[in-house]
């Protein structure tokens, strides 16, 4: 039983195979066929698989060669981010006709607070069915979603995962634990692979096992996360809905590049890193944000990963600061193998409330970078850049980490 929000009614709506479904909607010949949406570069991976492709074991992250091996006639479609964002805006528009309290969890997921809209769960189910009808009528018959209804976000999300595609699961109040016990620990949003491993080492393999550990012990082992685990095991979640109009800023901004050939040259990786840092810094300034952490990831030719993040001492939007932390992170991840892909992300973004302008040096550098960016914007891309970027031209798609966050 949820002791925090006993009377809440929360719906979680999760679009099924979203990118692939949109592409199938746009091209009727692709419907009912295995389709994989890929990234823009030549050496990309599957970024989304259609329901039919998933049947053959093709999923997000599958290499193209592997996908072709699993299903030789797979249709590969290049991703069109603008299209997915626009359709996502249409979806929010539909949701907002039913409730003003919507949390956009990611580009294809949202929480809807139906507490003051529906009197009970069955009425909430009717509303969700109406939403489903609106989606198919206004966007397309191929666009389907799964939904979960419960009295908190954690259980609602788990419920939406339970029946795909086009499902609707309602979890009545008081039945949360029975429902939860049907799932593995790894199914829960907020329990990642590392946490599962850690729990397994403690002989905790299920939510039932997790409930057998008291709060003090969990807090001792996992600190503040221990309390979250304690609540999760009991189907409790007191996290509120963050309405999209209050939290429209991205949570992270990242840039990445898969190279046409493997790269061995550390100097070249540094140049790419600087290019990304300049691009991210420009975006931060545009959105009046400061980054509090910076990370990098390297994918090697054998598909192994390295990388990590570091907290930034004074939150910044300066490319020079970001690059300083990029180099620092690179030192911690030595290039031991040929590199296939490099990525940089700026996280823990906060709004620049003008405090940084009080720092004389920071303000001077900020104005200098802004001037250079304005010149680049006015005339052509990258007229004024750091000298080491001369001749470097990387076409890559921007990526925004929007709202997705752990529940609890």
């Amino acid at each position, binding site marked *: 039983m949820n002791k925090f929000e006993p009377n809440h009614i929360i719906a979680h709506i999760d679009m099924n195979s979203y990118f692939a479904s*949109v592409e199938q*909607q*746009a*091209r*009727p*010949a692709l419907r009912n066929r295995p389709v994989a949406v890929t990234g823009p570069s030549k050496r990309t991976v599957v970024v989304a698989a259609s329901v039919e492709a998933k049947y053959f074991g093709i999923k997000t992250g599958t290499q193209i060669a592997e996908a072709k091996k699993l299903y030789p006639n797979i*249709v590969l*479609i*290049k991703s069109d981010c*603008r*299209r997915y964002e*626009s*359709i996502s*805006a*249409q979806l929010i528009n539909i949701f907002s006709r039913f409730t003003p309290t919507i949390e956009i969890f990611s580009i294809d997921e949202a929480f809807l607070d139906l507490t003051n809209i529906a009197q009970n769960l069955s009425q909430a189910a009717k509303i969700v069915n109406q939403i489903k009808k609106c989606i198919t009528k206004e*966007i*397309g018959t191929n666009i389907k979603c799964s939904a979960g209804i419960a009295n908190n976000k954690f259980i609602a999300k788990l419920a939406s995962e339970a029946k795909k595609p086009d499902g609707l699961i309602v979890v009545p109040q008081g039945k949360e634990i029975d429902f939860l016990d049907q799932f593995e620990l790894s199914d829960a949003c907020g329990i990642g692979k590392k946490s599962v491993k850690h729990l397994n080492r403690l002989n905790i393999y299920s939510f039932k096992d997790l409930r057998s550990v008291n709060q003090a012990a969990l807090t001792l082992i996992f600190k503040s996360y221990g309390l979250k685990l304690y609540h999760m095991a009991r189907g409790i979640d007191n996290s509120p809905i963050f309405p999209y109009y209050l939290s429209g800023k991205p949570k992270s901004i990242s840039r990445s590049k898969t190279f046409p050939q493997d790269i061995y040259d550390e100097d070249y990786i540094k140049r790419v890193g600087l290019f990304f840092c300049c691009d991210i810094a420009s975006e931060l300034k545009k959105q009046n944000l400061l980054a509090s952490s910076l990370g990098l990831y390297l994918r090697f030719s054998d598909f192994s990963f390295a990388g990590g993040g570091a907290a930034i001492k004074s939150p910044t939007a300066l490319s020079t600061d970001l690059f300083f932390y990029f180099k620092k992170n690179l030192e911690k991840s030595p290039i031991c193998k040929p590199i296939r892909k490099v990525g940089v992300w700026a996280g823990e973004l906060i709004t620049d409330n003008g405090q940084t302008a009080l720092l004389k040096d920071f303000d001077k550098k900020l104005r200098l970078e802004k001037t250079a960016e304005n010149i680049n914007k006015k005339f052509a891309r990258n007229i004024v850049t750091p000298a080491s970027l001369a001749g470097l031209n990387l076409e890559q798609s921007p990526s925004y980490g929007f709202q997705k966050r752990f529940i609890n």
Partner: protein
Amino acid sequence: MGQTQINEPIDVIAKFSKGSITPLIFKYKSRVIKIESVDLKYDLHQDKVNFSSFSVLANGNSYKINYNDQTHLWILEEIFIS
């Protein structure tokens, strides 16, 4: 089966009714192509310009055409041959 980027201006006959646009026929390389269905429609906003993007079906193939709200130009962006 595959996608081909075109990005060429085209002539389109469209219905403008009750605030919505529905493309009906377009001309590409001297061929008049009748649109059988509009399968996906969405609005885009880029560099302060609004676009309406349509994925349409004609002769068994899918076409992506964009309407620029400012210049009133139609662009054939992509053909997907089935």
